[in-house]
């Protein structure tokens, strides 16, 4: 039996503001295998960010079942969710979100430090990753001294450095120009290929969609289409559920 990196069954989420109810997810079911490079797309309000938040344990669903890295998210306390995020999930945010007071290297090693890894091992791992993704020599710069693309790479390094099972990226190229966005995608795809880490990102960007190996389109909180396209070695999927 396949152990999915992510498995959702009938996930529902409704936001409530006073008497107004806004359904964000209306029964999402999907499976994502380890090592997949998946994009979720759809118009604003289609539920992309909510889906990523729920998969990442940042938000809780109202109904349905969710397994991430073999853990049933419904059964985890907020402390256990924090631990899952720290050890098994990496996040890349739209606006980089590096801590401005830390250097690039310190930002990247932040999660390792929280995990309690010794200093020399942290440094070794970050420096190696930096050289892989074109950040060599920028270790001691503060975020304000880096370009947007470089900052987003540092954010990717921060997400990757703990060697998580899953990386969630919410519109990672939204604030980058085309060339920088393509370079970032190269980095992410390279890491996906070499480490086998599962990537799930939301996007509006057509060139990101083109690079995804599997494309999940959302519409009004439901999966409108789910298509596997690239020759990634992964099984082809029909719309809806992975084979």
């Amino acid at each position, binding site marked *: 039996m396949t152990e999915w990196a992510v498995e959702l069954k009938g996930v529902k989420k409704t936001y409530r503001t006073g008497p107004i109810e806004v359904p964000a997810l209306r029964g999402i079911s999907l499976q994502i295998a380890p090592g997949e490079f998946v994009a979720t797309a759809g118009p604003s309000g289609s539920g992309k960010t909510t889906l990523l938040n729920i998969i990442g344990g940042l938000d809780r669903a109202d109904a349905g079942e969710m397994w991430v890295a073999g853990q049933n998210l419904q059964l985890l306390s907020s402390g256990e969710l924090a631990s899952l995020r720290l050890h098994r999930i990496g996040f890349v945010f739209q606006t980089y979100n590096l801590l401005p*007071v830390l250097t690039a290297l310190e930002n990247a090693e932040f999660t390792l*430090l*929280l995990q309690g890894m010794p200093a020399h091992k942290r440094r070794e791992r970050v420096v190696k990753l930096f050289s892989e993704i074109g950040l060599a020599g920028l270790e001691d710069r503060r975020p304000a001294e880096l370009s947007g693309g470089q900052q987003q790479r540092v954010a990717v390094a921060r997400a990757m450095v703990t060697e998580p099972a899953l990386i969630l990226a919410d519109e990672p190229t939204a604030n980058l120009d085309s060339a920088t966005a393509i370079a970032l995608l190269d980095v992410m795809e390279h890491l996906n290929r070499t480490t086998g880490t599962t990537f799930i990102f939301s996007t509006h960007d057509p060139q990101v969609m083109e690079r995804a190996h599997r494309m999940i389109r959302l519409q009004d909180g439901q999966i409108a289409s789910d298509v596997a396209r690239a020759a990634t070695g992964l099984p082809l999927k029909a719309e809806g559920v992975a084979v």
Partner: protein
Amino acid sequence: MTSALLLVKLSWRNLWRNPRGTLLTAVALGLGLALLLVSLGLLDGGHEQTIADGVRFGPGHVVVQAKGYQDTNSNELLLPAQVVSAVEAFLQNGIMQPLVKGVSPRLLATGLLSSAANASGVRIMGVIPKNERAVSLIPQRMIAGAYLNNDKLSGVVIGDDLARKLEVKIGSKVVLMTQALGQTGTKTTQGAGDQMQSTLLRVSGIFRTGLQAVDANIIQVALPAAQTLLGVTDGQVTQIALLLEREGDSPLVAKALRRQLVGNPVEVLTWRESIPMLAQILGLDHAFNYIMNGVILAMVGLGILNTILMRVLERRYEFGVCKAIGLRPRQLALMVIGESLALATISLALGLALGLSIDHYFASSGLDLRLLFRTGLPPALVFDPILYSRLSPNRIVWSVSIVFMMATIISLYPALKAARTELPDALKVL
């Protein structure tokens, strides 16, 4: 441990994201501490001066007198001669001697002082001039003539208010009339009890203390003259006033004397017991000062709360990211508390530097109160117009602890706010 170091590093660096804001807040808190230190130093200095002056115009730091004198003020309650010699012998021993600056036996009574022009009721103090010089401030406040000496038993020193009333000057003749003391128990052993006695004296000195009660009422004569007038023999006196090197030793010396004189019909009182009014006034002054400092610190504290809270609120998104990547609420709270404590440390350093510098100036050069009174000092001001600060190490530790504790308590609410950063709401891009 490693993550604790990370939090310390983060806190310190976060503090300097807005250097101007940090410095302004640090200066505000530092000024609060400096103000606290300076006001406490001047308060304690003023109190020390007040106590020093108060006891030297009164019964000294410690007074030994016949049992019941404090309550009755009866002229007839006298210390037996053996008590006087026992006290003097005890104060000469090796342990007590370094603590005691002066010892003055006094015979106290009331009488009527008359001149050719007028008469006035007076409080008679029979003193040994040499001893009284070591205890009382009156010998130092002579404005005319000279203080008593042992050779001239007919001399009397009076206050300038009394001199004005009697229209006398140095060398003027005055007549002192009083009632001779009775003869029972610890009272006088011989004399003309209940009979009026009078003696002719010459004004040898006039003093001005500024205290109306002293300047208009107190007269001092040599102890033998007073004893003769009152019919007291055997060296009996009303009280023995002790001036100590340090006010703080008063309870210790009083306790030792009580132990030494146990079984004798005497009372040994510290200045707090013999001049309770002075102790109460100083206590009230302390309370008022604490309230004022409390108000100042509360205002500074609210300013700091506002600053830290604003810093936390504007970093809500950042806290959301920290939480998303695995920082726990407790760690977020510690980070904010760490920032506040780092800010408090800088403020305390600034406040200590400033406060101690100002205090040093006031301790060495003093604060000249005459600058506050354009038309001269109020006539009632008895004390040295230059106020010297006295800031004890205990006060410094206390002040620093209060301010540090305040900063810690103030940081709790913003820390709680940071810890309660809600996911995923905090991650919404505005």
